[in-house]
């Protein structure tokens, strides 16, 4: 009998606690914040410096996708002929079937051009069965929104900055060690 009463006391205590400070959220009115690493639907990024997508349509994400939810094609980049862009090829057509996507993030990992990201978009309901098949302009829109919200920096740029900093630190350490070695030799 005692343990049942103890359990009821616990329930009562947390009822009052919950009235003071609720644990739950009134979801549609109060959207849940997502974590920085949250993996929502994949989206394509926009290179605002040049004014074209990062994607070159190289198909590496399509070959690595476990569910074959994407398709793409590539074309010659008109901006490259004019000398504005360093990309010789550019994406012509890209489509992701977000109903089929399992949000695993493999496409982001294998991409060599920082062209695809897992956005924070996760609330997309449509009325048709194929309504979640998003083509290039839609994907770029989601990507632009994500880039703005998170102040996105391309991962390769980040990695290069990190490597440069490490190299600089190493060089500084070597320089600091050199005079010491030189004095030792002199001795």
């Amino acid at each position: 009998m005692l343990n049942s009463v103890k359990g009821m006391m616990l329930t009562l205590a947390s009822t009052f606690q919950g009235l003071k400070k609720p644990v739950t959220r009134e979801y549609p009115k109060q959207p849940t914040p997502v974590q920085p690493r949250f993996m929502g639907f994949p989206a394509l990024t926009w290179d605002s410096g040049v004014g074209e997508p990062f994607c070159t349509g190289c198909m590496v994400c399509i070959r690595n996708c476990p569910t074959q939810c994407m398709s793409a094609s590539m074309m010659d980049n008109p901006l490259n002929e004019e000398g504005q862009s360093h990309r010789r090829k550019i994406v012509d057509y890209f489509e992701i079937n977000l109903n089929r996507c399992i949000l695993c993030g493999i496409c982001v990992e294998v991409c060599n051009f920082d062209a695809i990201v897992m956005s924070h978009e996760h609330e997309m309901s449509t009325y048709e069965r194929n309504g979640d098949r998003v083509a290039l302009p839609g994907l770029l829109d989601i990507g632009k929104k994500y880039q703005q919200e998170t102040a996105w920096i391309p991962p390769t740029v980040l990695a290069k900055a990190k490597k440069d900093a490490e190299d600089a630190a190493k060089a500084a350490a070597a320089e600091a060690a050199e005079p010491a070695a030189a004095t030792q030799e002199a001795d």
Partner: protein
Amino acid sequence: MNAEPVEMLLNMGPQHPSTHGVFRMVLWVDGEKIVDVEPHIGYLHRGSEKLCEGEQYHQIITLFDRMDYVANFNNELVYCQAVEKLMGLAVPERAEYVRVILCELNRIASHLLYVGTIGLDAGAMTPTMFAFRGRERIQSLFEAISGARMMHNYFRIGGVKEDLPDNFEQMISDLLPQLKEDVEESDRILTFNEIFLIRLKDVGGISAEEAIDFGFTGPCLRGCGVEYDVRKAQPYSVYDRFDFDIPVGLDGDCWDRHWVRIQEMYESLKIIEQALQQIPGGEVVSSLGRRLIRPPAGEVYVRAENPRGELGVHLISNGTDRPYRLKVRPPSFCNLSAIKRLLAESWIADSVVILGSLDIVLGEVDR
């Protein structure tokens, strides 16, 4: 009036809330007594093992996420270990610790879900709310680390996807005291409750010999008094560096299985605390793991302790980028095989509790 006993056929499931998924039992009942039972599985069969043969090695991790969908990290670990063993790949120390911390957190999350559902099965609604609150906290941490609450795809062959986030230490030091409280609360509210004891004690008992014959593993076997845990019997990863106990039951009834799971949550908390103290710095993925994975021809069997028992993976490679065959030994499936024996001669009302105490996940049973 003629009052002769008549056997009746009662169809339970597949869309029954107490069958924990899509599991169907055909019960032959004599009044309130169960005479015989015919389990039907396969409603959630997705052909995962066959699908594995068509996917590249790094893509298969996503399939393992979806087998036991309440213990995703533990599943990913077994598969990654199998491929690493086949390739002879050494995993960086830090990655091993990250894996252990996440797996033990996942074990607590899985057992908390169990506490919630066994409460519902026994007729108590409140413990579910307590248990899910704790589980939700763990899943928020998982989201911060891996980017997904359940289907993480975070472990890699040769390490993990990326290092822990910068504010991880802050997050885990906030979480652990809360989690300890959650585990204690879910223990206090249910385990020694008189009604719960009457519902579970001396119900669905099985002897140790029989349990071993049925291939029981995990908390179901330890509830019978057999001290067997793969983490101790055949330590994998870095489990040999931690000091923890194996909780063991006495009679092998439903309550013992419940008690073992509750105690295991405390042990998992102990392991996490030790791992956080020992965790070294450095790389989290070996450089070999970043290339195209093409293990040499050969076969390997790897097993590990999941929240439900021993999960084994038998992987056969023929030297290409896809496995030749991948067989999974799911703990839930072997534990469920005893359902006919456990339910025989029990009451209809107890059948739900007995099934709940086995803690099956149909995604793993059917694969």
